[in-house]
């Protein structure tokens, strides 16, 4: 039975759905890019405001499907904020391009909805639903510039591979269900140690690994990152991967699969190869979007330290490390793709390394933001990326995961090379003075300034952010009592 309080606790998701419907109707009645954009921004802002209102009601289990707790709410805020940034970038990006632009906001809203559901998912059904809401929105978003062959190609690739992954996921869930008779994470607690359900669990992790572009399920990453419009890539890199990671940690902790030895060995292996392969792939790459794609593979590998360490250090520290790193990763990734978006002229995207030659002389502000984002991605102290990495290190060393930390150090060393390479490129003398584009993307610059402040703020004075992030991930007892 759903009570009024339950509905209130779901307010962030309900409001966002309502906004999606309103935007859809608005597009049907009056096609206007500005209107759709403003409605979306206002809608996301209202949804964000509801989060502090409901934060007193949590943790709350609403039907066996959804568990709204601090952990979910913190990530919801991050995802919505990232969606807001992506919307602003889309406005700047699509406004100078041809074609219908309005539906992109609708799709961003539904993608955020999927991410919100995933963050609160507590059951295989809501897991699958959230993932599909998110993925289907992304298919359309990636292939949104219909007349561009590369975008279409990227969309098809993502669609087909996602389909394969979803098939694995469903089959894995079925295997687990066949063995245990339940689809609730918490009820699985400690039981998935037997044969068919271990295979099922591995299949579920394979699907998750695909979404997170972990090695060896990573091959799509660079092509899709490159083909998708830059603001959509930003959304894909942050919201999609972040929400799946949030889900992975909750699923693992509540169902106890991290305690199954073969699963933790598998995760550790995947983490190590992801850190190494991702960074190696980025090493001599000359396409900025591909560099960021490969580096994201490495970053997802680093992040995997948190779930692997969770067995030893406990769920709370793992969740805190995960959220801190994700917050930093969101800020720096969005800033990097934001610069790519602003740099792109109307007819193409500024994705080659040569496009950035001498940026410090021609457009110093963008070069500064990009450098800070890259240095933060490299984990230089006094930036957010350093604090995030420090957390992972603390979790990893408390969990005595020396192999993982070794790979993390090697990966970071490699990362420094290709991040600094971009900074060098920007510091070189410009080849020829390029004409500045006429459009002055004020909104994007504002967003970049805020992200820059966040990267420094998290790096220099992280304490208040970390207090806000303090997740208090739920322990399965509560639902056990309901049984």
């Amino acid at each position, binding site marked *: 039975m759903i009570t009024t309080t339950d509905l209130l606790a779901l307010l962030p998701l309900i409001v966002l759905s309502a906004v999606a419907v309103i935007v859809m109707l608005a597009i049907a009645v009056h096609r206007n890019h500005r209107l759709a954009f403003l409605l979306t921004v206002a809608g996301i802002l209202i949804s964000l405001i509801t989060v502090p209102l409901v934060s007193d009601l949590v943790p709350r289990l609403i039907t066996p499907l959804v568990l709204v707790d601090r952990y979910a709410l913190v990530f919801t805020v991050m995802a919505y904020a990232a969606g807001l940034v992506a919307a602003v970038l889309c406005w700047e990006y699509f406004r100078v391009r041809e074609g219908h632009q309005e539906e992109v906001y609708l799709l961003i809203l539904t993608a955020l909805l999927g991410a919100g559901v995933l963050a609160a998912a507590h059951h295989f059904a809501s897991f699958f639903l959230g993932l599909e809401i998110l993925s289907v929105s992304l298919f359309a978003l990636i292939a949104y510039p219909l007349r561009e062959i590369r975008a279409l190609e990227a969309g*098809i*690739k993502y669609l*087909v*591979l996602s389909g*394969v*992954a979803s098939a*694995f996921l469903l089959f894995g869930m079925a295997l687990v269900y066949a063995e245990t008779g339940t689809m609730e994470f918490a009820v699985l607690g400690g039981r998935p140690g037997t044969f068919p359900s*271990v*295979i099922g*669990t*591995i*299949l579920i*992790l*394979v699907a998750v690994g*695909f979404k997170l572009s972990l090695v*060896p*399920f990573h*091959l*799509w990453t*660079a*092509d899709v990152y490159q083909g998708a419009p830059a603001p959509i890539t930003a959304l894909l890199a942050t919201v999609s991967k972040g929400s799946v990671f949030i889900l992975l940690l909750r699923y693992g902790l509540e169902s106890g699969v991290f305690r199954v*030895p*073969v699963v933790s*060995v*598998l995760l550790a292996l995947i983490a190590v190869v992801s850190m*190494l*392969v991702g960074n*190696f*792939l980025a*090493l*001599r*790459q000359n396409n900025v979007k591909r560099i960021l794609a490969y580096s994201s593979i490495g970053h997802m590998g680093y992040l995997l330290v948190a779930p692997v360490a969770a067995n030893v250090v406990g769920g709370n520290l793992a969740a805190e490390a995960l959220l801190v790193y994700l917050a930093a990763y969101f800020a720096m990734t969005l800033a990097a793709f934001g610069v790519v978006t602003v740099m792109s002229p109307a007819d193409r995207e500024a994705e080659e390394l040569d496009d950035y030659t001498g940026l410090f002389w021609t457009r110093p502000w963008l070069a500064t933001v990009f450098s800070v984002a890259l240095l933060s991605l490299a984990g230089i102290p006094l930036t957010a990326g350093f*604090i995030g990495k*420090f*957390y992972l290190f*603390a979790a990893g060393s*408390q969990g005595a995961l020396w192999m993982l930390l070794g790979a993390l150090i090697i990966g970071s060393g*490699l990362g420094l090379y290709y991040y600094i390479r971009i900074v060098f490129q920007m510091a070189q003398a410009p080849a020829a003075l390029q004409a500045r584009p006429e459009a002055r993307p004020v909104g994007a610059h504002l967003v970049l300034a805020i992200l820059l402040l966040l990267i420094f703020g998290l790096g*220099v*004075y*992280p*304490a208040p952010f970390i207090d806000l992030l303090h997740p208090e991930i739920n322990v399965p007892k509560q639902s056990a009592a309901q049984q």
Partner: protein
Amino acid sequence: MLNYLGLIPLFPLIGFLILVASQGNMPRRWVPWIGAGSVGLSAVLAALVGIEFLSGSLEPYRQTLWTWMRVGHFASGFSLYLDALSLNMMFVVTGVGFLIHVYSVGFMADDAGYARFFAYMNLFVFAMLVLVLADNLVLLYLGWEGVGLCSYLLIGFWYENPENGAAARKAFVMTRVGDTAMAIGLFLLFARLGTLDIQALLNRASAAWPVGSGMAALAALLLLGGAVGKSAQLPLQTWLPDAMAGPTPISALIHAATMVTAGVYLIARTHTLFELAPAVLQLVAAVGAVTLLIAGFTALTQRDIKRILAYSTISQIGYMFLALGVTAFSSAIFHLTTHAYFKALLFLAAGAVIHSYHHEHDIFRMGGLRKRLPIAFWSFVIGSAALTALPFTSGYFSKHEILASAFHAENGFWFWAAGTLGALLTGIYSFRLVFIAFFGPENERASEHLGFAMSVPLILLGALALLGGFVSMPLGSVFPRSEPGELGLIAGIFTDLAPLVGVGIAVLLYLLRTYPVEALTETRWGDMLHRFWFSGWGFDWLYGKLLVNPFRWLAAVNSSDIADDIYRGIAAASQYAHRAFAATQTGQLRWYVAAFTGGTVLAIALGILS
């Protein structure tokens, strides 16, 4: 008022940021207002904070600005700590620092890098304030490295001349040797005591380690390594004379008044730790005594006006180390303070001479400047009198305290004798400079055009050098109370007379030329000794033979480096790995699906096999 403490380092930082952000495009007449004004604001605020602190109970005041990170047991915060010791240092840094900034407004007025100069100076003052106000050793180390960086930047300020760059590098590398020891010391302290918060650390050290324990000695020794590097004491003293390549206000601020005394501050700050290691304290005193003599003898023979002052700085810091070594901590800090007054005065006066005299540094090409440069002359007389510790100048009080404390310490007679001999030498070399440069026949025309900005700081510092000895900080609240004992009649007479005798010798040798000094230096032994002392006791030669040349030889032999092969190998392997992995990125969907499925099969196989 006390809670404004955090603003004091902030002003110079803001000044630095403004000057840097303007990228040299700021109108020239604004630069001094920001550069010197920021430090002036700090000085005023420091005075207000100081008055409130001194009128209170002298209880230490802590201000945590924020916690940088806290993970596990390690917490590192931006927190400041104010007691009489750090207040004393803060006064010196902001007060003397401000006067030097004002002086620089005039001195650097024609320099192309005007804004850059003030930017570095402001950054230096910020870092120095962080160093003296830090409540934990991490923050102190930040300031410590910050002042080192600024010292490097400012020694090489006129970077067009490669010699200046070399001097800057030498200073940086030499101090780095000490800093490495200090960093190891910090790691050791954290590993053993579990904190780097200075007060907690000292408490835990005295609880955990008995007096004379090996671990305390090791930790103190490592910190001493950092201190001798920064303060240019034996055996790391050779960088300071070369550091005179920087503009003269830099020599006054960094290489006389503040940064080089950071080592003294460090030992005073962690004196509890050093008291647990009496053997190390004896070493500190011995280092000080030997350094002050070596530097004193060297100063006798130098010709460059700034190098004379540089060696005298090394020598005076030797006195401070001597005082620290005999646990007369407050005397050391007292001497640090008076030394800041009179040495800044001397350097600024030297700057005035150089400024008025076509950038001439050689005192033997000067002469008879007394009439032409009256302000510089009187500044030099006052400064030299205080340096020599003539009665009732500021230097007299502080040096007398040190010698009296040394006399009563263990092995005190020898320390006292070294100090007294040093005082004699100080008298000779200080007034040798004054007599040669300012008296005698006029060699060349020079005219004093100092302007308001340069003369006012000279006059104020002159007053401080004369009278600064009558005021002292209540350092008894920080250090264990130790009254400098009475010297007794004979020792007292020796102590008081030594500087006067020194001045007398200088009068005979250089002013009246009753016994011309050439008679001494032209004998065979005298000439050898002269050259030996002139080279700074051959330390540069020795280090060259012992360290630099073998290193160069090794580098030459190994020019296609074995060690490099490792790195080249890593780079090649990385590139190979990159190519190998990049080959998997075919862009073909069927291959992607196959790889995906293959990966899944592997994962399932792992599940079945386990």
